[in-house]
């Protein structure tokens, strides 16, 4: 068992605090889903964990060894960043084949055969410059680098952005095949929550630079329910419980409840109790009042 541990990570950009005293432990052999709203600090967290950005405070270690400026440790990590090779970007002129060749040089476990299969499956055009291809192909390139790197801890930031549904299905299948075969750890940051939910063994929710929860996905969903009914009945049924994201329409009310150990919605109230999916739970936990 290997552990990537973040201790008291803070990241500040001038006035804004992107990460606030984050403590997080990632265990090897799991697929984690990292979800949060835009600006919640997902990319910043991944960047700091992989030493691509320096933290303002705190430390990141892998099996007790610091990640920062430590090549043997960095060799075990891969953060395949979301590429946004716009015309003004420095990498816009770089050819895909050169980018992949550099990746092959840097990752000691690089699997050229797998990279070749993915390039072919995603119909990547290696001779094209990164700035000349569409968003889908850029995503395919980041996926190719992430999977072919064979890094023990692999981080993907919005890997399916811009991919069509067939390519997305192919990605999830390939990811699961790779996970089954190697037991590598994957951390996937995404906004397409419901589609990816089935892949996540654990989910990490980030809100305003803080970890809101890190929990087994099935366990989390098992204890989350939506209670609907007349406002008064819902209020009485959920009294004393951890309620989130209450919404009212006329006299009706719907509220998402996160039950703690041993808690349940009491019988005897005229309310409907339904399970919620990960996306609904995310909206309930992270949605701002007036936007949900």
């Amino acid at each position, binding site marked *: 068992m290997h552990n990537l541990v973040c201790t008291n990570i803070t990241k500040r950009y001038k006035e804004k605090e992107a990460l606030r005293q984050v403590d997080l432990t990632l265990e090897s052999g799991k697929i984690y889903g990292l979800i949060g709203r835009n600006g919640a600090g997902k990319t910043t967290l991944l960047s700091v964990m992989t030493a691509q950005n320096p933290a303002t405070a705190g430390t990141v270690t892998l099996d007790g060894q610091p990640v920062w400026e430590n090549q043997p440790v960095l060799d075990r990590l891969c953060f395949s*960043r*979301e590429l946004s*090779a716009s015309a003004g*970007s420095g*990498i816009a002129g770089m050819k895909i084949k050169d980018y992949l060749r550099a990746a092959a040089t*840097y*990752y000691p476990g690089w699997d050229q055969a797998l990279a070749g299969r993915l390039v072919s499956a995603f119909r990547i055009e290696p001779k094209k410059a990164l700035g000349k291809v569409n968003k889908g192909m850029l995503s395919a390139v980041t996926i190719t680098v992430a999977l072919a790197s064979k*890094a023990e801890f692999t981080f993907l930031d919005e890997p399916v952005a811009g991919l069509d549904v067939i390519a997305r299905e192919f990605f999830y299948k390939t990811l699961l095949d790779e996970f089954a075969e190697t037991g590598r750890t994957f951390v996937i940051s995404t906004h397409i929550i419901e589609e990816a939910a089935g892949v996540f063994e654990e989910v990490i929710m980030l809100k305003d630079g803080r970890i809101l929860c890190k929990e087994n996905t099935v366990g989390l969903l098992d204890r989350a329910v939506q209670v609907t009914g007349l406002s008064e009945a819902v209020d009485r049924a959920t009294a004393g419980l951890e309620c989130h994201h209450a919404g009212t329409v006329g006299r009706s009310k719907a509220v998402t409840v996160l039950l703690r150990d041993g808690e349940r919605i009491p019988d005897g109230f005229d309310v409907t109790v339904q399970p919620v999916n990960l996306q609904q739970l995310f909206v309930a936990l992270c949605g701002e009042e007036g936007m949900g």
Partner: protein
Amino acid sequence: MKVRCWLRLGGEMVLWSVLVALIFLAYNLLRMTGLDLPGLLSVFPYYILFGAAVFSALMGTTAYQTYLPVYLSLGSTRRDAMAGIHLMQLVLTVGCTVLAALLCLLVPGDPAHDLLPLLPAAFFGLLLLAKFGSLLGCGLLTLPRAGKVLCVILVSLFSGAAGFCAFTLVDTLTEQATLSLPTGMTLALAAVLVILLAIEIPWQRRILLRYEVKL
């Protein structure tokens, strides 16, 4: 140290410098009245050095804009990236200078032989241009908007000067078939190089410790 990508880049730039030299050679050929192959070959090393000069300055800047974020995103340490930039410039400079020296020794004719004593100065000159490019790259990354504008103006001036030098070089080599440099030029270039390094290294170190990867 993981600097293979940087070394490869330096090697590729040597090849690009040779390509530029071949283009100038072709241009020279067009200006000649008759085909003088030994004469043509004897000016080839000059053009290689000119190509190296252009790429030294360009790669200094491009290294920070393009390759640094890519290599750091692929798991390079900042220490290796810092060393890599210097090694890339050294490979380009040494590669082209050695190539020019070999040609000077192999090709018959005065122009090539005349270049041999100038090679130490050329070596330091190329490194100096590389550091000039590096400083511009650092400036583009860290300076406020006015500084960036200044860097862009300097790049434009350098490009203009390089173009002017190119045509002057061709004219001079076509007519006189040789170049000369003032005595003491090598030492002067080496001294300026030391000064530029003294500015670049602390600046580069400061940048790399705070650098945030964005692709």
